[in-house]
């Protein structure tokens, strides 16, 4: 083997092993060196040897197990379907928000900014959905493994086969009770609202401004504390992401069961904690709201408005929102727990001995 042939061989081996997991590369390249060396002794040239071995990518593919994927076939259809919905509703929300903002500022829509927002938000939405599905894929794989290694006395019976289990009809889980089914529509509505709300909070928090009329003119007035928005926003985004994860999980599960119940409880509690932090720990409301409104409205304030201003207290509104959110969360968790325990628990097959 001359140096040119050696170079060709090394290039070929590199093309094969670069597609393999790191820990296999060393060993496989030694194997291939041996193989190619042996073949070269019976073939007229290195080119003939490598042609016989064929496309290195094909070779590498045969070395791989084929089980390494981010999102498996089981979830793939749901993933693509949901991705479309989320991307469309992200894009529409961002476009409308940019247009309305441009209109408000009295200028033509800031095209560059709008397109930039469109890109970054779509990429963000894509990443979020993909990440959540990838996590679920991993979770499922681990769940499967756990099931395989769980040993039971029954394994010693007719089904015992060197630690591996045969499938028997006993493993059929019951068809979920009709009342345990989770509506796909409900999940989608919830996901769409989460996405729209999230996009608005991220790209157009000024949408939540109040607009007040002074004579013939309209004045926008910040209700939220946008000065500290960069600290408050991450809490909200995280909370929404957790809600999104819970919704996607329900969508995939399809019916209430213990896993959905656990996810509801954990996600609901986390969201509640994050909302509490955002509303109570940070100054969530614009601290100057009362003063500025008084300035704006001046003397033409109606008695109702002045009463409202006197009573305006951010803390109180926070408490009210928090109580409202806690009630909604409690209702959601309650539904999940009730439906799971009442309809979603795996029933035994009548007469089975499991």
């Amino acid at each position, binding site marked *: 083997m001359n140096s040119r042939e050696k170079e060709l061989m090394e290039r070929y081996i590199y093309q094969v092993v670069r597609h393999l997991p790191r820990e296999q590369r060393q060993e496989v390249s*030694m194997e291939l060196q*041996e193989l190619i060396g*042996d073949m070269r002794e019976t073939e007229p040239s290195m080119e003939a040897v490598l042609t016989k071995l064929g496309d290195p990518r*094909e*070779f590498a593919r045969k*070395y791989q197990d084929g089980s390494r994927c981010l999102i498996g076939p089981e979830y793939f259809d749901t993933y693509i379907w949901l991705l479309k919905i989320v991307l469309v509703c992200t894009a529409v929300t961002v476009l409308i928000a940019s247009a309305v903002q441009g209109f408000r500022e009295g200028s033509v829509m800031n095209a560059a900014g709008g397109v930039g927002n469109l890109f970054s938000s779509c990429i963000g939405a894509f990443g979020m959905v993909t990440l959540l599905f990838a996590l679920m894929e991993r979770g499922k794989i681990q769940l499967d493994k756990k099931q395989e290694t769980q040993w039971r006395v029954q394994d010693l019976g007719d089904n015992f086969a060197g630690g591996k289990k045969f499938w028997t009809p006993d493993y059929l889980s019951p068809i979920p009770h009709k009342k345990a089914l989770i509506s796909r529509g409900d999940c989608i509505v919830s996901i769409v609202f989460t996405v729209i709300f999230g996009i608005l909070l991220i790209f157009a928090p000024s949408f939540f401004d109040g607009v007040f009329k002074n004579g013939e003119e309209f004045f926008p007035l910040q209700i939220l504390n946008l000065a500290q928005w960069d600290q408050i926003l991450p809490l909200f985004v995280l909370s929404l992401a957790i809600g999104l994860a819970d919704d996607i999980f329900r969508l995939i599960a399809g019916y209430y069961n213990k896993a959905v119940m656990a996810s509801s409880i954990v996600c609901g509690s986390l969201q509640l904690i994050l909302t509490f932090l955002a509303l109570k720990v940070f100054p969530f409301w614009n601290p100057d709201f009362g003063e500025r409104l008084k300035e704006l409205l001046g003397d033409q304030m109606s008695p109702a408005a002045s009463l409202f201003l006197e009573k305006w207290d951010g803390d109180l509104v926070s408490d009210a929102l928090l109580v409202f959110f806690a009630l909604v969360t409690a209702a959601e968790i309650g539904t999940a727990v009730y439906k799971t325990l009442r309809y979603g628990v795996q029933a035994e097959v009548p007469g089975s001995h499991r």
Partner: protein
Amino acid sequence: MGEERNLLENLSMELRRGTLVLSVLSQMKEKKYGYSLVQSLEEKGVAIDPNTLYPLLRRLEKQGLLESMWETGGSKPRKYYRRTAYGDEIYQKLRTQWEELAAGMEKLLEEERG
């Protein structure tokens, strides 16, 4: 025409794929290195491409049917494979199944021949 040939090729590949493991296991009572296995299979009329065989050997080793050892004494390092005890056991069972299958197939095809 090309399509028909393609289809035939695919079907015949599928047919042979099922016999790969048994063919390889049958040759591994004594230790062998990869290319000597390629050659001996080819001589006996059961050719397997090296790019199929090498990954298969690794897989069978991972499944515990074969064991491997590197020998560095010769002119170049060689990886030898040999059946494990578990591999012997599986091979015997597969072999019995193959014989039953072959007998059954023979009957089917004979019947058709009339």
